[in-house]
Each structure stands twice: as structure tokens, then as C-alpha cells.
């Protein structure tokens, strides 16, 4: 059974690229355009195997999404990776505080993305 990944990014081109990359590696992908959309999309799901989220998005940003997910029992242990364009301490502190599992710096090579995800959920 394929693993399910929720990919959240307001940039269509990045989202499509990520989804394509993940799908070609055999994952099932749920796409969302912002945090709120992400929550709506997985409402019906009991859980997902991994969440990949961008940080800067309209309506609901990445950190808020992570915090919200962590507040829900079925997602409290789900691996969540932040896609970020910077690796500042501030970002790290905030991400960690929100409950993220880790981060990937943008722009990233699709292979690297797969490598990291594989490490996390196989």
C-alpha cells in the first residue's frame, strides 16, 4: 500500500513538481494550496504518513498548520517537514516549537526530497 503524503504549497509550480516527484516514487499525494486547505483536505483521512508544508502561504501559514495538526490526536505523531527558504535559527526555533519533525531548505533537488522522505517514512 502506498504511503500518503500531504503536500502544502501556495505555489502551483512547486506543488506540481513536488507531487509529480513523490508520485513517481510511488507515494500517494494529497495537494493543498495553503494551511486551511490542507486541513480541509485531510479531514476525512484518519491520518497521513507525512506532511510537507511550505511556510509562507496566505490564509494559514505553515507554522500554524503544524501547530494545528499537532493539536489533533491523529496527527500528533505524523512526520511533518517544513519547506523553507532559509535555515535561520529563528526558523528552527519556531519550527521546533510548533512541533515540526524537520525541515528541508528550498530550493531542493527532487532526488534529495525523495531521499529525505525515504529516510523518514521509507
Amino acid at each position: 500500500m502506498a504511503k500518503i503524503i500531504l503536500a502544502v504549497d501556495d505555489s502551483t509550480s512547486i506543488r506540481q513538481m513536488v507531487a509529480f516527484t513523490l508520485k513517481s516514487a510511488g507515494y500517494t499525494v494529497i495537494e493543498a494550496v495553503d494551511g486551511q486547505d490542507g486541513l480541509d483536505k485531510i479531514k476525512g483521512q484518519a491520518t497521513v504518513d507525512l506532511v510537507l508544508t511550505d511556510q509562507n502561504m496566505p490564509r494559514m501559514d505553515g507554522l500554524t498548520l503544524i501547530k494545528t495538526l499537532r493539536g489533533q490526536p491523529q496527527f500528533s505523531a505524523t512526520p511533518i517537514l517544513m519547506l523553507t527558504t532559509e535555515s535561520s535559527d529563528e526558523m528552527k526555533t519556531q519550527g521546533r516549537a510548533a512541533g515540526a519533525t524537520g525541515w528541508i531548505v528550498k530550493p531542493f533537488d527532487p532526488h534529495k526530497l525523495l531521499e529525505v522522505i525515504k529516510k523518514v517514512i521509507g
Partner: protein
Amino acid sequence: MSIDMSQFYQVFFEETAEHLASMESLLLALNLDAPEADQLDAIFRAAHSIKGGSGTFGFTDITDVTHELESLLDRLRKREFAITVEMVDAFLQAGDVLRNLLAGHQNGRTIDIKASIEVCAKLEKLAEENSLQNHVALTALGLTGQAGNHSPYGERRSEARGQGTSSTPAEPLPASVQRICQIQFPNTADDFPSEVHLNNMLEELSNIGKIENKEIANQSVTLSLSTYASEAEVRDVFSFFFKPEQLKITVAEVAAKETSEQGYGFFVEPEAVKSGNDGAQGYGFFTDPDAIKSGVEDAQGYGFFTDPDAIKSGVEDAQGYGFFTDPDKIKSGVEDAQGYGFFEEVGNHAQPEVSKTGLRKEDSPGRRATDERATTAGDTSIRVSVVKVDQLVNLVGELVITQAMLAEAVGNLDPVLYDRLVIGLTQLERNTRNLQDSVMSVRMMPINLVFSRFQRVVRDGAIKLGKKVQLVVVGEGTELDKGLIETISDPLNHLVRNSLDHGLEVPEVRIANGKDPQGTITLRAAHQGGNIVIEVSDDGAGLNRERILAKARENGLLVNDSMSDTEVWQLVFAPGFSTAAVITDVSGRGVGMDVVKKNIESIGGRVEITSKHGQGSSIIIRLPLTLAILDGLSVAVGNQIYIVPLGFISESLQPKEEDIKVISGQGQVVHVRGEYLPMIALHRLFNIPTKIISPAEGILVLLEAEGKKVAMLVDELVGQHQVVIKSLETNYRKVTGMSGATIMGDGRVAMIIDVGGLVKMGTQ
């Protein structure tokens, strides 16, 4: 597996164009004294998205410019300093440069490198100026950062631009050094009871680095390991299996990699930051030192919530993190654990066996279906190619023609006898009309697509001319056919520039005349009947009647002082006409207004000017709502039917013999209310045999186009129809005198007269 990124380029181009457009309108709408947080955020996000996308798809020139832009915008939205007009100008300029670069990638257009470098320099200068200010201020307050370092508000641009800004902390992070270790260890049955055990160990080793040149011999194994881990850490991996003396390791250091290669990281323990895994790597882990030593994350650049003891013993560590698998499984080499992330457990209860299968839910097939959706998440619209829409319009056009033919065929039947047929066809006509309206509306777009760019035009033009101007837009949601939008853009541009340049006065003059120093240009659009009416008006000085008359005389035009104002204003549409005292690059060259009129008339529209001296001017453009359907008058000449577009017809009349005169060298003219109009007999023009030769026996249709009038002689008027225009060019070839063709209800083909061409012919 290699992934072809170019399939995503088109989406990126469109997406970036939208971001650039929204960035510009937001910048123009900003109130510089009290900018709204939402707007600043949105502007930042637009730049941020462009940077992210361009970096991902390798358009580094775009990334470079956007990088500067984004960091300034980020600091602005964090209110580190106030926004100035100078900054907005630089941002707008950056937007222009980005558009240019984008066009370069998308269409292969030449890029203006100079502008690109210029704008980057400008942005950098702004960044420096503002960080310097803060630094100075902070020094004064004694609040600067650690000695020798930049102010905490400054940002150090990392070399690896593509990776994004790294606002580094005060203490420099230890550079990560890559090492190559040559390792040799025994391979006896005592050490590794089975191959599985050896593989387990090798897998654990591969978590901290890349194994190469592996040689497995009977008694020993040699391999080289490229890793960022230290020798101690490498040894740690083996510590479970061997005593230190059994292990042979030689280490060679490779130059430190500057750029953040790994680009990811995990949050584990704060101690991990100090252990120095992140920074240069581009990833970081809040992993606790033990975990690091176990060599799980580090080099690879991922961090996990785990401490090695916990991994090995499978017990929930004090931090409350759990594992996917229990340690027995880890040791026995069951997949997961090695190098996979471990996540925090809820409730801190010991649950060593949180297997991945447990977390995963049934794969619902329904999900796959939604993944394949063409629409983007949350959208209620879809992108459709214009070609498909045009095809649809064409097919509906055919349907209308067929329906008209049926209606005609049935028209002669007894409606009582064939009542079901007649009723059915009436219904068909209604349905077809609705379908046609619906399909036409698909091509309709709000005129705001054209109006929106004028905010920038007015802003820049006003600044350049030293005038204060505001642009008011009314009815920007009014829709018109996509084809019309493209055609109307240039004429509107010319009209707006005219108002800016010649209509509106400089603030001093306005004040002297008791006006508000700020002038207003109004763009208004509305539907009126089957037309769309667009108005460009200003509250400037208005047209100067005397100057126009004088200029007209200069150009040799026939004028007299008793001409009405409306007639005088029409003179500005004459070719080469301009009363501008000074020709600027904004306008004044006198090639504008006549081109404007011609362009508008070419799409079946009309232009009118009204003006009041000292108060302002208004130009009104009337356009048909669509280019595919025409309201026309069908006329008969011999056994042919021609369609005359209603928009050009002023009236039809049957002339009296005495009103027809012949002027030598000019042919026949007809006297109508004091005017002598050239007469064009269609039967003579198109060589059609007909019984009606004398104008007094036929009908004269008075046409007006491009300011000229002619009288067209036809046999008789047939009726008024709405016809579907079929292109002659695509189906046959361009025919002089005809602007298209259509199929009548009886199946006959009727040509649509090119009135503009006809009038030109007649008035030469």
C-alpha cells in the same frame, strides 16, 4: 530516475506573471504613510513565491533579483524601517526587470542586463542604508550584537543565494568537514554470525556516510566511507560489534563544503545546534549529542527525534520521543529504524513498537481520483486554451445557422397542421440562443484586465510630467470579448496619455483656475444594449476650439467658424493632427487619434469626443460585445444578398430623380439635406446583373465610416438579422470589399460588406 522539470515551466511562467501583476497593483495601492500589514505581507509573499519557484526550476537570474527584493520586503513587513517612495519606485522597477527576465526565459526575448544589474544595485543600496541606520541607532543605545559582528538587524547574504538567506547568529558555526575514512574490520563468524548481521552493521554505517569501494573478503571487510562525521563517531558505529583494536580506520579530510548541500534538518534537541551539525549543511537537527555520535543524522543532514540509547534499547527516551520499531527489530535488521525519522509520541507512554504499518491507514482509492483532478485545490475555475473556446464558438455558430435554415424551411408550413414541428423549432431557437449567449460569455473577460495597468501608467506619467493625477476606475468588472480586450488596449493607452499630457494642467495652473491641484482621469465601462461603452475622461483644460481650427486650416482641411463643437472635435481624428505645442515622448506626435479611430472602427466600434473648455474632455468608445456575431441589414442586388453592419448605417431612403447629379470626374452624387454624398452602385461595383439601374428605382443606404459618408445603391432592403460571421480568409481568401460572409436561413451564402473599405473607395 530523473525528473524532467521543463514540464512545470509553463505553470511557473504563468504563476510568476500573476505574482508580478499582483505585486505591482499592491505596491501602487499602498498608503505610504500607513501601509497595511496585510498588503505588505502579500507583496512579500509574491516576491517570496517567485524566488522559490525560480530557484527550484533553475532560473537563477530571476532568483538573484528576487532575493534582494524579498529580503527588503521581509524587513519592511516586520516594520524594521519605514517604506518610502524611493523604495516603491525601486520595487516597481524590480518588477519590470523580472518581467523582462521572465519574457527572456519564456519567449526567448532579449533581456536588459543593464537594468537588471541597476535594480539589484539600487535594492542593495536601500538595504545597506537601512541596516546602517539601525546599526547606528542601536550603537547609540548600546544594543549592538556581539563585537565584530553585524547588527542583529542586518542580514548577511549567504554565498549560496539559491538556498535562501541565512540570518546567521553571532557565533560562527563550525564548518562541516567531509572526511573519507578507509575502514577495515574482521569478518569472522564470531563477529558476524550471519550475513544479515554484517548487512545490519553496514546499513547503520551507511546512515552516517556513503560507503564506497566495499570489498567483502572471507576474513575481513574493507571499504571507504565519505562522511561528515568525526572519526570518533564512526568508531561508535562499530563499538557494538568490535573492540577498538579490531578496527582499522584511516581518515583523510576533504575541503569543507561551503554551500548547504543537504538542505534539510530535523528538530530534536537544542544541544544539537551547538554540536554544529547545521548551518553550512543547510539542515540541522535538534538532536541530542548522543544521537549525533551514533551517527544517524548528521552528515546526511536530517535530524531525528531520538537519542541513541533509546534507539538501541528501544525505550522511550526522556524527551518523550518514540520510535517506529523496537530495538530488537533494529538489531535484527528489520528495515525502518535505520535512518528513518522518529517521532514524538503522544502522551509519553512507552510504545516501542509504533510500526509504520500501524500509522498508515488504508489506501483509499478515492484519494487517487482527487489527485488526478485537473483543477488546483480550492479553485472553482479551470484553465482552458483559447483554441478550444474558439472551436466551441464556431460550432455553436454552425448550430445557429442550421437552426435558422430549419426555421426558414418550416416558415412556409401550416402552423396548425405541423404544430408540433413549429413549437419544437421555436423551442430550438430559444435553446440555441441561450447556448450561443452562454458560449459567447466564456470568452468574456472583465475589462479590468486592461484598466489595471493604467494605474502604473498614470503614476509614472504624472511623476514624469510633474503633475498630480489620480486614476478613478468605474465598472472595471464589465465584461467584453477577449479578442476586443487585446485590440482596445493600445487605443485606451493613447487616450490616457493624451489626458495626462495635454488634458490635465500642472498643479499651479489648476490652483490658479480654482481647481483641485490633483487632476482626475476617469476610466468608465458599462454595458448599453448590445454594446459596451468605455469612457476616458479628465477634468483638465478641455479641447481648445481655436487651436484646432487654426491647425486644421494649416493642414489644408476645409473648415469654417460656424462648425459646431462636435464637428470641430472630430477634426482631431484627421491623420497627422496635433495641436500640441511640444511633442513629448508621451504623446503629441499626431499619429495617435486617427489610428485610435481606425482601430476602434475596425472592430465595429465608434468613437465620440465631448469637451468643455476649462472643464475637461471625454472620449466615448462604443464597441459591439462580440466579434463573432453581427447585427446587419440584409440588402438585395440582383439575386444576391449582402449584409451591411448596422453600426455604419445612418439611414436608408429612396431618392428622387432630381436629387441625383453627376459631377464630372467624381461620378454620381446624391443630394441629401444640403450635402452631396458620393454614390456607389453595388451592382456596378460587383458586376451583378440587375434590373434596377436607376437610383430612383432602388434604395440608397447612407453609410458613414471614418468620418466620411457615402450612399450605397441597392435594389431593395430585405430585413434586419443577427448573423454569425464566417471568415473568408480562413475558408477562402481575403476579398476586397468584403469583411466576411454568413449563411442565411435559406442556406444561401451572403457576403458582409466591408463598409470602411467601401467608403474609402467612394470618397477617393
